[in-house]
């Protein structure tokens, strides 16, 4: 059998056939990024038409104290007494929501360090406190790495951890902590936290309980294309089994201030390529998300034409990527997100965490560049009122 080429892969995609590892590798090695993007865009438009999803969410990192020592992380402070280490009191964390109650987020996305000194009740109280303030807020909290840590640290099964958190208000799991599953990479960049298999197992349990989750991949450090492909194929296999993943979010490695600071960051072309290939390989994932914090809003706009159908949300106050040198803003105004999507020629759809439609905007029928003056005015108006 001959090695796959762009042409043979295109043929498979058009015929709706599943891509294998060799196909994906051919795409990673192909210089013609536009043809790959066009292929991914075709798949994306078949699934979602012109829609581009976003939500009104709030990122919160309540503690950066962490027992893990991931090489790529510029956020964690290993011990609670170290300079810059910070753990919010429950009142401080709840306050973040209370002050935004005149225009509240629909989702709170909490990601933390693995803090060894907090009681499990801290997390339960954190969630139930948010629910007390706003009963319908969706709590998308704690990566599989945190859940796995809770299980070990508080001597429970993963299922017990999840059940107690669900009882406290947990709505779904975010996709972080996946990094790269392959052990030869993972042991070198994050040896002392959940393994790839353990990460997948947490999601398997969550899915069995009816929780929806997301998945990520941290690329662009010491891994090879084969490692990325292996990661995607493992996600695809679990999704075949459970169907519980909603979105896949490729995350670019940012080198500032961490243990891999001498590595170059992946470039925009690599970002777009990885995103497009994810769309093509993950044929059983509904959504591919361009996380604008990682890629910058400008590249996220292009990504909406290279396979992505979701821009995440307003986020408000991101600190993990910013600790690693991200130059993106820490949050985007609602109207600003709508404008980004419209400028990319897509129809903005505000969704909730589970992809129920919250607000549908007028279809953006004008081709991507040719926005009419009146649309621009409408957008500017939006940016002002929100």
């Amino acid at each position, binding site marked *: 059998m001959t090695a796959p080429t762009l042409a043979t892969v295109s043929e498979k995609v058009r015929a709706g056939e599943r891509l294998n590892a060799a196909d994906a590798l051919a795409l990673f090695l192909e210089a013609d990024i*536009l043809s790959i993007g066009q292929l991914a865009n075709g798949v994306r438009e078949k699934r979602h038409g012109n829609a581009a999803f976003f939500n009104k969410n709030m990122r919160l990192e309540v503690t950066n104290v962490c027992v893990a020592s991931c090489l790529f992380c510029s956020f964690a402070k290993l011990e609670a007494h170290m300079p810059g280490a910070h753990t919010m009191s429950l009142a401080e964390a709840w306050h973040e929501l209370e002050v935004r109650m005149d225009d509240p987020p629909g989702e709170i996305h909490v990601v933390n360090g693995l803090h060894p000194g907090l009681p499990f009740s801290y997390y339960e109280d954190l969630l139930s406190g948010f629910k007390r303030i706003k009963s319908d807020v969706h709590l998308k909290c704690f990566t599989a790495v945190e859940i796995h840590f809770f299980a070990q640290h508080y001597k429970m099964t993963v299922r017990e951890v999840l059940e107690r958190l669900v009882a406290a208000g947990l709505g779904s799991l975010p996709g972080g902590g996946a990094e790269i599953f392959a052990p030869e990479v993972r042991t070198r960049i994050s040896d002392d936290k959940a393994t790839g298999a353990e990460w997948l197992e947490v999601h398997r349990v969550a899915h069995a309980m009816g929780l929806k989750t997301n998945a990520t991949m941290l690329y662009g450090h010491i891994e090879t294309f084969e490692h990325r492909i292996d990661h995607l194929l493992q996600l695809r296999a679990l999704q075949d089994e459970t169907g519980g993943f909603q979105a896949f979010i490729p995350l670019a490695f940012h080198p500032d201030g961490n243990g891999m600071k001498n590595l170059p960051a*992946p*470039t925009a072309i690599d970002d777009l390529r990885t995103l497009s290939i994810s769309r093509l390989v993950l044929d059983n994932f509904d959504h591919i998300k361009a996380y604008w914090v990682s*890629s910058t809003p400008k590249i996220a*706009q292009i990504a909406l034409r290279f396979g992505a159908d979701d821009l995440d949300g307003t986020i408000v106050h991101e600190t993990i990527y910013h600790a690693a040198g991200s130059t993106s803003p820490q949050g985007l105004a609602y109207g600003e997100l709508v404008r980004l999507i419209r400028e990319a020629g897509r129809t903005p759809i505000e969704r909730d965490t589970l992809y129920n439609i919250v607000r549908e905007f007028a279809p953006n029928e004008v081709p991507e*560049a040719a*926005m009419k003056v009146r649309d*621009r005015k409408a957008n500017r108006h939006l940016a002002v009122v929100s």
Partner: protein
Amino acid sequence: MMAPLRVAAVSYLNALPLTAGLAQKSGVVLTEALPSEVARRLAEGEADVALLPVVAAAVLGDVAFLRGAAIGCMGAVESVLLLAECNPGEITELALDLASRTSVILARLLLKVRYGVEPKLVGLESAEAIAFVRGTRAAVVIGDLALEVSERFPRRLDLGAEWFSWTGLPFVFAAWCTYPQRVTAAQEALFHDARIEGLGARSALAERFSAASGLVRERVDTYLHTSIRYEFGVAEQAGLQRFFDESALHGFLPQAQVRLLDVERHRPSTPPNLDGILSRAAEGARLSVSDGERLFHEASLFDLGLAADMVRRRKHPQDVVTFIVDRNVNYTNVCTTSCRFCAFYRPVGHPEGYVLSREVLGQKLQEVVDAGGVQILLQGGLNPELPLTWYEDLFRWMKSTFRLGLHALSPEEILHLAALEHLSVRVVLERLRAAGLDSVPGGGAEILVDRVRRHIAKTKCRSDDWLGVMRTAHQMGLRSSCTMMYGTVDTPRERVLHLAKLRELQDETGGFTAFFCWDYQYEKGVRLAPGENGTLTYLRTQALARLMLDNIDHVGASWVTQGPGVGQVALRFGADDFGSVMFEENVVSSAGTSFRMNAATMEERIHAAGFKAVRRNVRYDWLTEPV
């Protein structure tokens, strides 16, 4: 009451039979101008109907021809001549009359097809063109001047006769053109009436013209009655279509169709399909303004990108992306122009106004030398306190102290110096070159459509002035870049018109090295609101520019305004150059955009986009081996 119909026409003798009667019609405002200006007025919406040189109709691509009337010939025409001392096959340089693009393309076509020569072109005013003819240098001369001077030259080709002996068809120089929905059936009838009246009055017109010009009355009479034909029937349309086809075949004009105005339906027949335009574009064929506009509106991001990438690959098959190590130095921020989009300038007397001292400049230049840089890009505001001698001294000092190329002073600054010193542009450029100027940056072009320029910068030079400085610089052998800043009040059509103007000048001079574009960088507090500034619009616009500018070698990605990521992606949308490493760039960064890249990260991004990297100089010569 209906608004009067604005009609633009050439003022030549041969147009009089079509226009004389029209001037008296009520509801018609007739203005007369040179052919290129007539074309500009129709293109930029200042006229509803124009007696349009046919090449302008092809370049625009979407105009419709009124039936029945045109200016043409069947055989010898007498007023469109190629004058030479040598045989046509020996011509090496051709002065062309700037006012007449149709005659120029006809001459180039005939010389190429019938005599096998493609002479170097030199754009000159008519009078200069005549003086230019010597040895193997020839000139195309048209209009009344041609009638007057033809006998002084030993060799003259009557282009109408040449065309006829080649094709056996009539030739059409100009015809009434319009856009759909601008002319009612009743108004179209006025043109027929005027033609009939004008043809009947030819003897009277000849008499008046002969009295005014001193030309022999019989000669003028014969010219109007016999040499020029005013028909636009099936034969003329076939001749015109043949001219369009041959010109497109040889790359002189976009592929164009002769489309008649159908007053009933108010629209010309079906425009060409999008795929057809795209495949012609990818093959490197010349596109019309209408083709460009349609691509901008209708082609997908990928269609545009892939076509532009294909053109880039054909022009630069080595898969190399170049960049330059240079520094942008803004010698003064004092400026009298007060452009509404500019956050950098300070008015005269403002406490934040500055002029860089020799010490500061010297330090900046030394840093460039130390970093392996090859050039200084020197630009500034229009500071009335700096005379030409200040620049001459500065340039001499810079060139004698540092081994750096001097890419300096955009057209606006040259014009400012010319006005300040009461000198011609040519003299200013000659003195600056003598002092060390190596090349001219293409900034300040913005959009070369005066409607836009008036809106964003009232006191800025007009489009033709900007192009005129570049023409002069190119004629002197100075190379320049060219640019486009879009996204203020400009329409997609105006962007394409801008590109068409650059392409037209490049046909004439070949002096542009590269094209860069970027969107207006809005900053709070500046008086001009932001326009349509999406990232995708940038990629589409750059790709479209690569497709329109078939005669400009290089297209650069403006990472300074778009960010390194978008800049890198733009390398797959038709760009073959990554611009400059950035020491500093004050104008854009005062508008809040600030990105930095050094040579190593530039090379890294070029590699990651699938190209080899090469350092270049201002002429795009390679200074390093591809890595």
